[in-house]
């Protein structure tokens, strides 16, 4: 479990993390979402005691990390896949970290196997691709068989196969009863694996939702294509739907499900060429929630897909 209590970090005038209060629970994958610069990495550094909070506290399994007798067993973290000396082998990198709490070489070889880089364990880490670096970082996080696993953007640089593997790994770790806290700016990836979503913007908590609650936020609409959009539009509006035109022969319908749209078209005698239910993605929910809190917004705001 990770508990944040009024956690605040200011760098001079800039507030990176603003009175964040949050509990990350065991047995779940918690997705930590937010636009770039929202304070995700700073929050993770505060949890590890690497940065000193301006106010508030961060507790790992009930106490600050510095008070743990065996920090590697309380929390395993991956902050930066490049946080390795480029001339040290992957295995020696892990051995040096493991030695601090007396973890033996057997466990080092075991985590190398778990993340699938045992074949290159003697290679200088500087030769690793970003994806291999992420795997090595995960291996380091798992060394102490920790109750909390915290990963900052672990999907970055992974190939498609690696992404599927990482997803399964996160699920597996949570199913073992661990607390899994994973930051990402890739909403769609998180949507596939997380049980809970914590969304921050400008250092503030914007939402703390379960996957089911996110679905409730998601708007459903129906995309329908017809050679006679005017008649169909009239029929649908009469049935209480909200209709917007989307191109010359396509309508976007909200307020009716796809079965009702089909029924209305049949009654009105309008020919349909396409009828597709559209569920807004987590990305849309995320954009809606963070619109006001984006630190660096583009000159022309991107239109939500």
């Amino acid at each position, binding site marked *: 479990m990770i508990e944040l209590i009024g956690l605040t970090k200011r760098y001079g005038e800039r507030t990176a993390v603003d009175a964040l209060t949050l509990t990350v629970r065991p047995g779940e994958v918690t997705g930590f979402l937010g636009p770039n610069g929202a304070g995700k990495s700073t929050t993770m550094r505060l949890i590890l005691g*690497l940065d000193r909070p301006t106010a508030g506290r961060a507790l790992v399994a009930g106490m600050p990390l510095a008070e*743990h007798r*065996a920090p590697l067993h309380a*929390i395993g973290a991956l*902050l930066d896949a490049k946080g390795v000396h480029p001339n040290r082998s992957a295995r020696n990198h892990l*051995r040096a970290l493991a*030695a*601090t*709490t007396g973890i033996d070489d057997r466990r080092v070889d075991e985590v190398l196997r778990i993340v699938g880089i045992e074949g290159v364990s003697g290679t200088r880490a500087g030769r690793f691709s970003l994806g291999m670096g992420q795997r090595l970082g995960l291996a380091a996080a798992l060394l102490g068989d920790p109750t909390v696993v915290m990963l900052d953007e672990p999907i970055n640089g992974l190939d498609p196969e690696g992404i599927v593997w990482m997803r399964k790994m996160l699920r597996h770790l949570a199913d073992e009863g661990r607390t899994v806290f994973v930051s990402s700016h890739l909403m769609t990836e998180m949507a596939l694996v997380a049980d809970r979503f914590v969304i921050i913007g400008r250092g503030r908590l914007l939402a703390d939702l379960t996957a089911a609650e996110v679905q409730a936020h998601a708007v459903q609409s129906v995309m329908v294509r017809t050679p006679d959009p005017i008649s169909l539009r009239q029929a649908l509006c009469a049935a209480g739907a909200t209709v917007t035109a989307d191109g010359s022969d396509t309508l976007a319908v909200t307020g009716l499900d796809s079965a009702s749209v089909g029924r209305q078209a049949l009654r009105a005698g309008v020919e349909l060429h396409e009828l597709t239910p559209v569920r807004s993605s987590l990305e849309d929910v995320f954009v809606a929630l963070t619109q006001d809190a984006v630190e660096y917004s583009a000159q022309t705001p991107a239109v939500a897909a």
Partner: protein
Amino acid sequence: MARSLGLTEARVVRSEWLKFWSLRSRFVTLGISAIGVAAIGAIAAGVVDASALDGDPAARAAVASLGVLPIVLGVLGVLSATNEYAGGLIRATFAAVPSRTPVIRAKALVLAAIATATVAATALAAYGLGALTYDGGAAYGSPFDGDVIRFVGAAALEAVGYALLGLGLGLLLRNGAGAISTLMGLVMVVPIVVSLIPWMSDTVGPYLISSAQMAVAGSGTDDLLPVPAALAVFAAWVAVPLVVAVVVTRRRDA
């Protein structure tokens, strides 16, 4: 796992020991330096003119070039800190050892042990090779004749001191190039500048780290500090940056 797992000072030292020796460049740097110094010692002993020794045993010439090693150890001291800051490894290190001080203590201990062992091994090799190459008139001399052992001891002390000064500067500046330049400036450039300015060479000169080291080695001139005072000055040169580095590193965001 059977053994009780948890942080201990000894385990952090082991971790730093593994870090030091798991870089091939460390073997190469120390190996080449030691072989080079021993070889120069052998050559020096081979060509030394007994009449020019001024009462010293010839073995003194064999160990005279040990003074190169402290510079090498100083650079390794800097790198043992700045290497970790360069790539972000320091965050993994401090996440594993959140109180941080044990990491610095362990680095200092490992550096001190390696510095002492390197100087001792190199001195032994230089002395031995020198005995083979020397064919002057006077006796070659045992290591305990004259100032030979004192000179070697002072070189070992200097190597330990430079390594720890390097560690302190590396932790404070967190940048390899900057910390190495500062170290070289303090031990090589400042003494030259001070010696060129008359009023400074008398007042400040004896308190420089290089002068203190020469006083301890017994290889300087009359205007140096007495040995106990020189030892204290040398210790302060090493301890002050290191203590400041510990305080700053504990407080600073990593």
